[in-house]
């Protein structure tokens, strides 16, 4: 029997809803079968906690007296530049922004110990940061300089706004070359010494709703310890890829753009991350509840690590030079076992995304639902799925015509 989101919300209100995590549902389906489980279970909670570079926050600091037009000027928070191409006291701080005087990779490999993501984590922890600005001054905004300490609670708005999070599946990165390389997939030692992956597999939100049948624009989610919403498909959303019979993509595929009130988030679930030789990123905790509307949805949520396949890609040549070539396909069950086989070689695995924290997020979300603190929403519009015209293309570079040519 099919259910609706509003029926499920009624059950949550009455305290009769059955809510389980994406890990727990596997056992339930094994014991009871899909049909019975679909009738019994109302919500499956998912989770992921991994570095998501396309993240950041926008702030409104409040106007100074006299007024300053930071917009179009220069602004830093704890020495990290924020984007000022907005109104007078609105800025956007990107997770990967580095201080202007950071040596970055000129001292190779750079440490990237401080950046936008670290400032966001510090603000969320309730600490104060130093806001500095230089402006050009106008008749209505005469002030030219500003230096002050500021905390999240001092700001009018502080909103986490991430254009691409929650990647549905990801490459397993290896290094076939003879020297160590430093990537966003971590340090990859030469000659296949290690293989790094970055997905929570069976816990991951989009792995449990692989064709985006419930997750869409307007879906309320656990975001950074607080609450947020899916507001669009993420950048590079790529639904039309090779998929298994279970609908799960075998390569990186769907993504989500998300938003939420930063003031209500926690540093436990938003962490600045420093990737040696690569840069700064923000590790974001996201949990998505999946309403079990019917047997089909339930079947998706019962996916296990052994049914999810990831491609192994060489990050010394293939990835940077955009050369096709998948070295092997492995399951998340194999990746989580600690070793995989690539080109006949046993390779040790490590992850960038935390499985145990993903489970914790799913449990926290489940508790919030059971305590009537979190209700499900129906998507107001779907995100593009299989068969849509959404695709990802490379940049088509066009040589510039110079004057006189």
């Amino acid at each position, binding site marked *: 029997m099919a259910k609706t989101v509003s029926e499920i919300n009624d059950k949550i209100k009455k305290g009769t809803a059955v809510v389980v995590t994406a890990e727990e549902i596997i056992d339930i389906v094994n014991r009871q079968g899909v049909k019975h489980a679909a009738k019994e279970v109302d919500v499956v909670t998912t989770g992921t*906690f*991994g*570095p998501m570079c396309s993240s950041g926050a926008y702030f409104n600091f409040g106007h100074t007296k006299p007024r300053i037009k930071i917009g179009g000027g220069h602004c830093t928070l704890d020495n990290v530049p924020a984007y000022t191409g907005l109104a007078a006291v609105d800025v956007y701080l990107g997770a990967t922004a580095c201080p202007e005087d950071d040596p970055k990779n000129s001292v190779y*490999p750079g*440490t990237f*110990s401080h950046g936008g993501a670290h400032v966001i984590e510090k603000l969320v922890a309730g600490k104060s940061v130093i806001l500095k600005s230089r402006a050009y001054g106008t008749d209505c905004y005469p002030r030219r300089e500003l230096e002050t300490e500021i905390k999240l609670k001092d700001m009018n708005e502080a909103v986490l706004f991430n254009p691409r999070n929650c990647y549905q599946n990801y490459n397993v990165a290896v290094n076939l070359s003879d020297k160590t390389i430093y990537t966003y997939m*971590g*340090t990859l*030692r030469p000659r296949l*010494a*290690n*293989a*790094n992956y970055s997905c929570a597999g069976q816990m991951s939100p989009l792995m449990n709703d692989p064709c985006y049948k419930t997750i869409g624009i307007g879906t309320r989610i656990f975001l950074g310890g607080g609450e947020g919403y899916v507001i669009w498909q993420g950048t590079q959303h790529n639904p039309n890829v090779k998929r298994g019979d279970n609908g799960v993509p075998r390569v990186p595929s769907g993504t989500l753009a998300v938003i939420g009130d930063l003031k209500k988030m926690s540093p436990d679930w938003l*962490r*600045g*991350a*420093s*990737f*040696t030789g690569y840069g700064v*990123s923000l*590790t974001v905790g996201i949990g998505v509840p999946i309403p079990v509307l019917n047997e089909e949805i339930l079947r998706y949520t019962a996916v296990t690590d052994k049914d999810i396949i990831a491609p192994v890609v060489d990050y010394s040549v293939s990835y940077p030079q955009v050369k096709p070539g998948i070295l092997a396909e492995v399951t998340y069950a194999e990746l*989580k*076992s*600690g070793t995989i086989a690539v080109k006949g070689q046993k390779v*040790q*695995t*490590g*992850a*960038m*995304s*935390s*499985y*145990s*924290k993903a*489970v914790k997020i799913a449990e926290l979300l489940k508790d919030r639902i059971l305590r009537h603190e979190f209700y499900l929403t129906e998507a107001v519009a779907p995100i593009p799925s299989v068969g849509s015209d959404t695709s990802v293309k490379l940049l088509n570079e066009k040589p510039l015509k110079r004057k006189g040519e």
Partner: protein
Amino acid sequence: MLKKRIVLTFPPSLVSQPITYYLVKDYNLMFNIMRGVVTPDEEGRLVLELSGNRKSLDAGIAYLKQQGINVESLSHDIKWRENRCTHCTACIPACPTNALSVNRKTMEVSFNKEDCIACELCISICPFKALVINF
């Protein structure tokens, strides 16, 4: 037979001395060099595992201190800040002794100081600075 892992820091004046030779000859200790570094300022650092009876170990370590060598127990060397650890497991393939290991059921990381040889490979790999050198 007892084993003790120690970190020795040599001042420049002692870098050329055959200190470990005396540990064997005069104190009847076995040693295994786990790491050795001579810095640009010619200060030396040596991580040793010493084996012998308690009396010999104590006497050998007293001898090292007498020479002006700073002796620290290795267990204080690398610190795992559990509250910074996100249990991502990025450090796992880098650890040569399995001092950092994973419970494969829960995928939680743990750190066993006893097995750590302070090779420091994990330090730059951890994105969250959960592993720090503690000198």
